[in-house]
């Protein structure tokens, strides 16, 4: 059971890391399809 809870915590941990990681690489549709000449909504 301890392993199960550990795995569930890892799910959350990986998700948070992924969130910051993905933003660092600029993955969103808005970011990946816009040129620098386009202003994105803040």
């Amino acid at each position: 059971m301890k392993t199960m809870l550990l795995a569930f915590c890892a799910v959350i941990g990986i998700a948070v890391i992924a969130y910051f990681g993905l933003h660092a690489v600029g993955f969103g549709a808005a970011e990946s399809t816009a040129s620098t000449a386009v202003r994105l909504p803040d």
Partner: protein
Amino acid sequence: MIRAFIAGLVICLLALSARAQDVPAPDRSATGGAQTLADILARQDAQKIDDRFRRDNIGDPAAGDTTQPLGTRGGQSDPDLWRALRYDEADVTTQSRGPAGDVLIQDGGMRWLKFRQGPLVTYGGYLLLGTIGLLGLFYLIRGRIRIDGEKTGRTITRFKAIERFAHWLMGGSFILLALTGLLSLFGRKFIIPVFGHDSFAILAVASKWVHNNVSWAFMIGLTMVFFMWVLENIPNRHDLKWVAVGGGLLKKGVHPPAKKFNAGQKVIFWSVILLGSSISVSGLSLLFPFELPMFAKTFAHLNEFGLPQFFGLGELPAVLTPQEEMQYAQLWHAIVGFILIAIIIVHIYIGSVGMEGAFDAMGNGEVEEQWAREHHSLWVDEVKAKQAKAQTTAVE
């Protein structure tokens, strides 16, 4: 293998949704080759029309110089240009750097939206409800599958901590992904009418966050599980016997022999691996919009293979706009997702309430020896033989 599987499923899907019929090309001499009333009526009737007479009729910029009557566009008139835009044949240059930025018109959107809000929601929903209903019925008839023999009080280690960790990494994330995925698909139809737009907006944003980011945990868990359990999931001759007696699930006291995983579990394993990978790949394609198009290529391979033609679907479109690629990715992701969710509902049932003693295998990793003898007799023999050998070497 995965490709072939995807191919098969695509074909089935298209076969189900194909209502269009081929009609002979009408005589267009009266309109000088342009659309006729018959074309328009056929289109309104959702019949399949060979549209090459319009698609290919986009003028020729190279023909005629710019001083000729057609003017500055050379051998291309305005209608030619509009048709070129309409069929994504125009040479468009834009400032927008996105891959889809130079497609000014694409007409797959309505078809996609209707399919997503119609058959996808309806049949997907019935699939899940039907699965739950059948399990309920199974429970009423068969009840909980008990350990038939006398319990020994001894336990055997079935899964190591790392195996349980990987299972729950994959399982925990999958459940979150399934719930948030279903929420995004069904929310508009079922949640907005009850709770209103404002509450759903919060739910939808949260769902999207969870769905996008938790997907990585699932992919990591899936990879770990694959490498740890693949060897034990290769089919063998015992599986035939197991299937022949329905795994002994239907009748008390029937226990076909099995090694570490029985045929039923192998089906679960391979479904999770194959469908899970397919969902992962199409999911990545959705997560990185326009970066990983894969349907036009797959369709081209299928056409070469002759599979769609065999099913009377004609050739699948081998040229797709970036938006259409995304539309197919979404539908594929959702369809395969529904199938795997249905399979996993059955798995969760049998791994918890459905069978006495099963949950311990993934709970603390230790199973009752009698449970193991009834469901995995050959595996118990292997474990015992190994233990005996270890003991004799220790004594020596």
